[in-house]
């Protein structure tokens, strides 16, 4: 009772980290995903109601709870069947790899088939269900059971008269189970307006799980929902689940929230020119990439490039195709020079092809989860997304894709999706309206000019990176995708032969210009040569003049000196001066 009070305190909505607050004791189910949704398992010491329509997997869920408990958590369990004989049960669950015979022999599980034949029974006076209590008690005590399953106890209403007594007794039974402290699962068939035919949810009100098996557009999908869980937080959504050779697996996708880490790592798109457009480095790791375009614009080829680049780096890629078989994809990609076969052989690439209509959306999602969990790829490719849109299920498809994108992001897997845009629809609008969850959106479109149809690529958006805003012409060559600049003229972008013409014109203009430049260069050279010749001539003239001048200067000097000497000698001879005389005399 004290535990019930925990419900009244405001339960933290955050599913993030388990806080160290007193938690309801729980019995782990061991069922993949269910423990995650229920925050650790089913309540210990309280009955849990599992209800749903025919064939929705109630018995299986209950049985797996017991078997996992017995084998993985060492908690023996009692299975009380009201509908199937123990022999049938053993056979039915053997397909899931549960060896009930062995578990019964090892006293891990006790099976009891309660069979009531209405025709044999006559009522006389008051009765109670003490016999059932005694049977169950004996079985629990015999193996020390911690878990109990009652499948489907509502059968009692068909077998025994006086529903009033039954109701009172069931109420007593559930209380008794609580007193026993066992974790119990009670299954119930879905009623008209109620969860169960007999309104068991009124008695078992601690934990209620509803299973559902829906068929929509001729495909079926199974879902699970925790309707209530007293004293515990739980994922409240409908979760798809699968029943396969490993038992039940539930996919708690949306419970994870938007808490994934964003990587700064970049990975190549496989087309160098596209990487350059995406800030020079390519996509972010763990981002979601959408390539949309009309038919035949090369979406799959871009996707194959990405897969090829991933494998080339040694990474693993998972390719889901909804239109082509693996063989067909490999053949087609070989024609543009991408050899995917080598990666498949090396185990780096897995291609899964199946029609979207082969199963329900949830089943598809669940299958993808299983494959992704098993293969652990770095890159997941879906080609194309909108194959899922059959009829009027767009909302479901969108929900599924958002969950898939979320799942991939939490696993840091880069997702690349293609979307076939219907001609006539605006390209920026995907039919499935999933653009909001896409990080990088590439648009491929046809450009019709001059009687030609050419492909153009541009980046509509790319979160968190500077990216090119230009349109590139997109060519599929025998060595893969090539991106070319387009010419932007007054009439818009030019592609194909218009671009080629423009290129040729440009080339001619360039040639003429080059020739002119050459001409000028030669002229200049000639001028220089002439000028240099003139300079040399002048220099030579100057040199001659220089020599002549210096000769004259020399002569002048010599004459001058001669003249001076002559005059002196004449003076001496004439004794014209006293001084030179005196000097002459002294010297003599």
């Amino acid at each position, binding site marked *: 009772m004290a535990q019930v009070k925990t419900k009244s305190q405001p339960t933290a909505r955050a599913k993030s980290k388990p806080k160290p607050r007193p938690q309801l004791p729980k019995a782990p189910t061991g069922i993949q995903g269910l423990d995650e949704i229920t925050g650790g398992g089913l309540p210990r010491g309280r009955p849990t109601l599992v209800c749903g329509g025919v064939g929705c997997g109630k018995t299986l869920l209950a049985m797996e709870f017991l078997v996992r408990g017995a084998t993985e958590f060492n908690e023996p369990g009692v299975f009380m069947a009201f509908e199937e004989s123990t022999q049938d049960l053993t056979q039915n669950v053997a397909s899931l790899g549960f060896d009930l015979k062995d578990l019964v022999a090892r006293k891990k599980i006790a099976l*009891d088939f*309660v*069979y*009531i034949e209405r025709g*044999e*029974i*006559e*009522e*006389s*006076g*008051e*009765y*109670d*269900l*003490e*016999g*059932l209590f*005694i*049977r169950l*008690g*004996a*079985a629990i005590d015999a193996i020390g059971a911690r878990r109990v399953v009652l499948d489907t106890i509502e059968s*009692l209403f068909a*077998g*025994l008269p006086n529903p009033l007594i039954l109701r009172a007794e069931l109420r007593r039974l559930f209380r008794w189970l609580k007193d026993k402290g066992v974790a119990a699962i009670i299954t119930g068939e879905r009623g008209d307006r109620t969860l169960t035919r007999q309104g068991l949810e009124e008695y078992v009100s601690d934990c209620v799980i509803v299973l559902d098996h829906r068929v929509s557009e001729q495909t079926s999908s199974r879902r699970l929902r925790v309707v209530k869980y007293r004293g515990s937080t739980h994922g409240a959504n409908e979760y798809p689940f699968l029943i396969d050779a490993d038992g039940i697996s539930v996919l708690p996708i949306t419970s994870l929230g938007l808490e994934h880490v964003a990587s700064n790592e970049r990975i190549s798109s496989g087309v160098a020119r596209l990487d350059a457009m995406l800030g020079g480095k390519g996509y972010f790791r763990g981002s979601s990439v959408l390539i949309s375009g009309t038919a035949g614009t090369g979406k799959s080829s871009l996707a194959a490039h990405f897969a090829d680049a991933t494998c080339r780096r040694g990474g693993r890629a998972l390719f889901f195709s909804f239109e082509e078989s693996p063989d067909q994809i490999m053949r087609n990609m070989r024609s543009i020079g991408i050899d995917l076969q080598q990666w498949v052989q090396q185990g780096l690439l897995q291609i899964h092809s199946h029609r979207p209509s082969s199963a329900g959306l949830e089943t598809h999602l669940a299958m993808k989860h299983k494959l992704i969990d098993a293969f652990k790829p770095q890159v997941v490719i879906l080609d194309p997304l909108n194959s899922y849109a059959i009829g009027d299920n767009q909302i479901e498809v969108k929900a599924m894709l958002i969950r898939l994108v979320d799942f991939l992001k939490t696993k840091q897997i880069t997702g690349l999706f293609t979307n076939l845009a219907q001609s006539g629809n605006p390209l920026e609008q995907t039919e499935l309206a999933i653009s909001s969850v896409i990080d990088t959106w590439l648009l491929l479109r046809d450009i019709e000019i001059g009687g030609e149809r050419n492909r153009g690529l541009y980046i509509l958006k790319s979160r968190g990176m500077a990216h090119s805003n230009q349109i590139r012409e997109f060519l599929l060559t025998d060595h893969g995708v090539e991106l070319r600049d387009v010419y932007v003229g007054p009439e818009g972008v030019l592609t194909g032969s218009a671009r080629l013409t423009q290129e040729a014109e440009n080339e001619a203009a360039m040639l003429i210009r080059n020739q002119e430049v050459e001409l000028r260069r030669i002229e200049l050279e000639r001028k220089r040569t002439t000028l240099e010749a003139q300079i040399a001539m002048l220099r030579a003239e100057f040199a001659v003049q220089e020599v002549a001048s210096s000769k004259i200067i020399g002569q002048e000097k010599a004459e001058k000196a001669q003249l001076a000497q002559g005059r002196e000698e004449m003076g001496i001879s004439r004794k014209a001066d006293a001084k030179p005389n005196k000097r002459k005399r002294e010297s003599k």
Partner: protein
Amino acid sequence: MKAKPTRPAQQGDKQAPAHYILKLYVAGQSPKSISAIANIRKICEEELHRQYDLEVIDLYQQPNLAQGDQIVALPTLIKKLPPPLRRIIGDLSDTARVLVGLDIKKKA
């Protein structure tokens, strides 16, 4: 269990002196158990004239017997013989219905 029918049972014939093998499952000394035991003893004495074996089983003492005889409700009276097998649940206070259940009287 141990008792053998002395002569072949004749079904449907209410006056046929068939031998009855009856088992009454009860749970301890609950009021319903006590009244059921008293009621069946009285009915047997009055209607079956010693042509019967009655075994009273207390499931509290022998809980493992519940599974074999498919006991769910208590008290349960099982008519093993003569065929067909019948179960009468309740404290057997409605004598008329017990007699119908034992094929001593036809349903009204």
